[in-house]
């Protein structure tokens, strides 16, 4: 058994590792397995404590690329970074991209990831045209919106539990430049954010806002709105980074991140003079944190939590204020809090996280019970307001909370491969916390 952890470095598990090398290879005969891509989810959806994980990093072959139509088929272990290096010089981009490009294609499907263009493009799964699902009984199911449609819907956002995704075919979007035209503006509170968002969404393909979650009172919910569009300057020949240029070589000491340092950072960041309109490289617009390998070490040895929830539009302002107040009151600092409005697109997967409403994401150093209590409190607010929390970023939600966020979980259960499981799934469906 080997020591394992995901990006948030909490929890830590002991699991066996059986790497996969070829897509024609049968699955090993083990009672409990789980595919493991790049380990960039934050909690335990990619972990399988006491059992087996199947690393897919060596399933990294491209299969077919139609550069006229923008359709790419590749093995599930290929990363989005590898895809971008291949397709961008030919004028294509990912139809949807999360905030890091160092995730695997299989992981992007299994977590049905989303990006800054959700209000227009929906989630990653909306652009998947087909994939192969390898079941532990040896069956290979070709899944698409037309074929094995129920398996297709169960596997998108299905947290890797329906079997091994061996390859995926995606539809890309055409671009004419590596650059992004970016516009940044301030907003003073949540109300202003919502008003600004309504205007900006019409003209901007990518929208996201950073929020100062330590500001209180009148400043509650102040932040910076960042909008972007693909530029049209015909610049497709710029170098792209395949690997991070910098690395965080050791763990930062835990005391570095406290409410005072984060508060000063947030105040300075909010007030930093910046150009309102600029033309930036796509890496710095979409993947600012990819420049630093192991940035998760910033939070020290104990790791950190992410909390990402979505609240339906009608209740969003009220619920988000409550959440921000609770965080400000607890004084548990978050550097990176972002808000974004999700569009009306129907989620493509049975257990997809993105749904219409406002989503708020933040990270928090692990300070033990104190942090867990705060997160439980945030779950109370999310549950009361018919929201949901994102499993890919979770390491602690209760079974009760999960089942209220994902009422389809029982329908989904029938698609789970009998020999697949995860630490996350056992945690949220175990009998404790059942209604």
């Amino acid at each position: 058994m080997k020591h394992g952890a995901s990006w948030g470095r909490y929890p830590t598990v002991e699991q066996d590792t059986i790497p996969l090398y070829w897509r024609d290879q049968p699955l090993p005969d083990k009672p409990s397995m789980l595919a493991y891509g790049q380990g960039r989810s934050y909690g335990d959806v990619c972990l399988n404590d006491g059992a087996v994980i199947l690393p897919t990093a060596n399933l990294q072959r491209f299969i077919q690329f139609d550069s006229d139509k923008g359709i790419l088929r590749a093995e599930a272990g290929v990363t989005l970074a590898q895809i971008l290096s291949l397709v961008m010089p030919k004028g294509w981009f990912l139809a949807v991209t999360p905030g890091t490009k160092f995730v695997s294609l299989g992981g992007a499907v299994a977590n049905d990831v989303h990006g800054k263009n959700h209000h227009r493009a929906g989630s990653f799964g909306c652009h998947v045209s087909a994939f192969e699902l390898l079941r532990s009984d040896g069956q290979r199911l070709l899944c698409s919106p037309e074929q094995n449609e129920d398996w297709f819907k169960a596997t998108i956002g299905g947290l890797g539990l329906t079997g091994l995704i061996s390859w995926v075919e995606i539809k890309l979007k055409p671009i004419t430049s590596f650059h992004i035209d970016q516009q940044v503006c301030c907003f003073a509170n949540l109300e202003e954010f919502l008003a600004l968002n309504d205007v900006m969404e019409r003209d901007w393909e990518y929208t996201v806002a950073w929020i100062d979650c330590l500001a209180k009172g009148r400043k509650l919910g102040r932040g910076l709105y960042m909008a972007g569009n693909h530029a049209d300057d015909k610049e497709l020949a710029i170098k792209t980074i395949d690997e991070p240029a910098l690395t965080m070589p050791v763990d930062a000491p835990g005391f570095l991140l406290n409410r005072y340092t984060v508060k000063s950072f947030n105040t300075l960041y909010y007030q930093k003079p910046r150009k309102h309109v600029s033309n930036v490289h796509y890496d710095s617009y979409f993947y600012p944190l990819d420049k630093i390998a192991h940035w998760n070490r910033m939070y020290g040895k104990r790791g950190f939590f992410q909390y990402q929830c979505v609240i339906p539009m009608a209740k969003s302002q009220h619920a988000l204020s409550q959440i921000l107040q609770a965080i400000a009151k607890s004084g548990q600092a978050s550097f990176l809090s972002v808000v974004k409005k999700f569009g009306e697109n129907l989620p493509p997967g049975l257990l997809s996280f993105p749904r219409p409403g406002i989503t708020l994401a933040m990270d928090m150093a692990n300070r033990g019970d104190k942090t867990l209590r705060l997160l439980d409190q945030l779950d109370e607010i999310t549950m009361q307001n018919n929201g949901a929390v994102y499993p890919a970023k979770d390491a602690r939600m209760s079974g009760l909370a999960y089942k209220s966020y994902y009422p389809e979980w029982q329908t989904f259960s029938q698609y789970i491969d009998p020999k697949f499981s995860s630490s996350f799934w056992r945690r949220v469906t175990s009998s404790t916390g059942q209604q």
Partner: protein
Amino acid sequence: MKNILILGATSAIAERFAQRYANQDCRFYLVSRNQIRLDNVADDLRVRGAKDVITESLDLTETSGHNHFMTSVIGRLEHIDIALIAYGSLSNQPACEGDSELSLKELNTNCLSVISLLTLLANVFEKQASGCIAVISSVAGDRGRQSNYIYGTAKGALTIFLQGLRNRLDRKGVHVLTIKPGFVDTPMTQDFKKGLLWVSPKSIAKGIENAIKRKKDTVYLPFFWRYIMLIIKFIPERIFKRMSL
């Protein structure tokens, strides 16, 4: 356009090596036993920009087929810029100790069959008076150790053969490269416990490409193995024989 011949093309190191060259205006001739996996590798190289990929499934340890095979290679590639020999098997030492047939089989896979191919290839390269013959040997061939001396014997003999070949072909303008990787995380070493010294096949492939560009004779990958092996070679035999390395 460059013509690249890869023997053992489905090995993890060979595959990463080919991927590095795929967008450099290359034509590949890939050989390995398994046609389905060869096709997987070939499709990937085509998507990455390879100009042409020829595949042939063949058991290269069967030396009787080598003459016929080389004729077909020359028939299809008029010139070979790089030939990489990357196949091999990590011998099970305790099993070899109890089975002389198995020992000989391992020697054939990792050494004799390679020497047979190199003999034929050398003449092709000598005639064309250019190009690079790159062969994956191993740090295990630097000194015989109780834990894997059958594998070590094969790789050691191969290393000496390559020295001789280099001495013969250098004056003809042919580059002969001996590659000595340390611990590499590949299917061949799947069952080993991995520590600090282990590296990915991707980084070995990068090292091979650099060594070819710089016309190195012997390259240890990663570089620190040169010093580890230097120390191991320096230990006097009367002490070494009591150690369990």
